[in-house]
């Protein structure tokens, strides 16, 4: 890319995720990933786009420790990992407050500390006033906000997102994209975000990684030159459209 480099924070670069030649073969013989090299530093928001079943989720599962790579080395330099699932995975019997407290509770943090942390996270995602609401009383977007807040209580250095907004309507998704960008700009975590949507990928990330399907391989990488936090209006600029076009093109080539 010949465009100007994005503004980087002054903090020292810390590599939080380092995949080198990572491959994944499941017991049934399916090869989900092959030869993946991927680095995510603090202050980087990397989005992975690729067709269904290309092993994007497997990438996250390896990063989080849910799976172990069958080949190569996968290094994660932190134990503060946030993981946002495809669905909100809230516990239906707990209200928003108690749901957001869950992870701190599982990490055996004292009650007062985790309540304070949960309160802060709830405010941050805009759910103030809904602390006592049960998941069944929330919309899909609000559930996702609660899920985000829950991960935020871990104060993650590495934040993994597995297509979190895939099931939401366009307007909610765009709004949550903006919220996520705001959080990222504020917290400067390292983000790894999986999505199907090319425009979402370009809009929220500092780098877009394109994968091909079966076995999942990285076919192209694009730096996104726009400033963080992002102006929602950039979505309607020529530069943005051009980059979306290039990514889509790479995606299509990798797919065939």
């Amino acid at each position: 890319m010949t465009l100007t480099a994005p503004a980087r924070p002054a903090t020292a670069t810390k590599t939080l995720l380092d995949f080198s030649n990572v491959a994944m073969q499941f017991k049934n013989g399916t090869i989900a990933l092959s030869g993946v090299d991927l680095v995510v530093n603090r202050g980087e928001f990397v989005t992975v786009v690729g067709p269904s079943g290309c092993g994007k989720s497997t990438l996250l599962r390896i990063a989080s420790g849910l799976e172990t790579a069958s080949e190569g080395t996968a290094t994660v330099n932190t134990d503060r990992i946030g993981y946002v699932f495809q669905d909100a995975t809230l516990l239906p019997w707990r209200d928003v407050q108690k749901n957001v407290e869950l992870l701190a509770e599982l990490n055996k943090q004292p009650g007062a500390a985790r309540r304070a942390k949960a309160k802060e996270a709830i405010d941050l995602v805009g759910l103030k006033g809904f602390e006592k609401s049960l998941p069944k009383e929330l919309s899909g977007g609000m559930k996702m906000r609660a899920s985000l807040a829950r991960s935020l209580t871990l104060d993650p250095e590495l934040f993994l997102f597995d297509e979190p907004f895939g099931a939401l309507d366009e307007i909610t998704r765009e709004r949550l994209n903006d919220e996520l960008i705001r959080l990222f700009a504020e917290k400067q975590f390292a983000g790894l975000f999986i999505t199907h949507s090319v425009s979402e990928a370009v809009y929220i990330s500092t780098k877009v990684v394109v994968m091909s399907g079966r076995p999942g391989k990285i076919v192209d990488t694009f730096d996104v030159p726009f400033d963080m936090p992002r102006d929602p209006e950039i979505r309607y600029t020529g530069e943005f459209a051009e980059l979306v076009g290039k990514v889509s093109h790479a995606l299509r080539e990798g797919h065939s």
Partner: protein
Amino acid sequence: MSTVAKAATTGSPTLAISTRKVDVRKSVRQAGPPLAVLAGVVIVWYIISFALGTKSFLLPAPHRIFTEGFFDPEVATDIGTALLRTTGVALAGLAIAIIIGIAWAVAMSQARWVERSLFPYAVILQCIPILALVPLIGFWFGFEFFARMIVCVMIALFPMVSNTLFGLQSVDKSQRELFRLQGASRFTTLTKLQFPAALPAIFAGMRISAGLAVVGAIVGDFFFRRGQPGIGSLIGTYQSRLLGPELFASIISASLLGVVIFALFGLIGRAAVGRWYEPAGS
């Protein structure tokens, strides 16, 4: 977003009133047909009863079930005492079935090999005709409270085991992974995730078991025919003496006991999990 939700909350009281109005009409419409059926049955009942003439003890006219059954002080006392005794047996049996059933299911949920070793016996317990075992149970444990309770437990156990196990295993995969990512122990995962998630299924099982516990208490008693009479042996006594109205009164009482306990556990279940649980498809 929040303004929309708040508007919806303030708008709900009027909505609730209007639905209540509709509910009255709806409940009349719902209760109408079954009441009509009941009326039809009663009419046919009277016709048959009169046609039987001297053999009317086979099917006494409905009003006689009240005049000679429920409203007869002596019969009412007998039925009441027996019913109380049976209720005690049923509830004690149910409590034991609940405890054993949940413990059994929890054990099976912890390891595949435990499930493989124990589940067949739950199924066998469900399949053997308990009636065939009743004499044996009396032979071993006597014919009083304890033996009757064992019959109860054996009949009521299976739904508790299978429902609890189903509930524990139905936890969402990603919710389980959420716990795994935090390094939650087996015990924490069980108490904070699996068990609460299983509660709706457990209460559904409890309701079925409650109904079966009443059946068990009556069956045990009916076949033992010894010791202090529960409603089962009272039914047996009335039957052998050809006391039609009393027999019908005792049978109706026994049936009502089952219905009441079933409904009671439905209410308990709703009180416990209704706040957050949404049955699929609602």
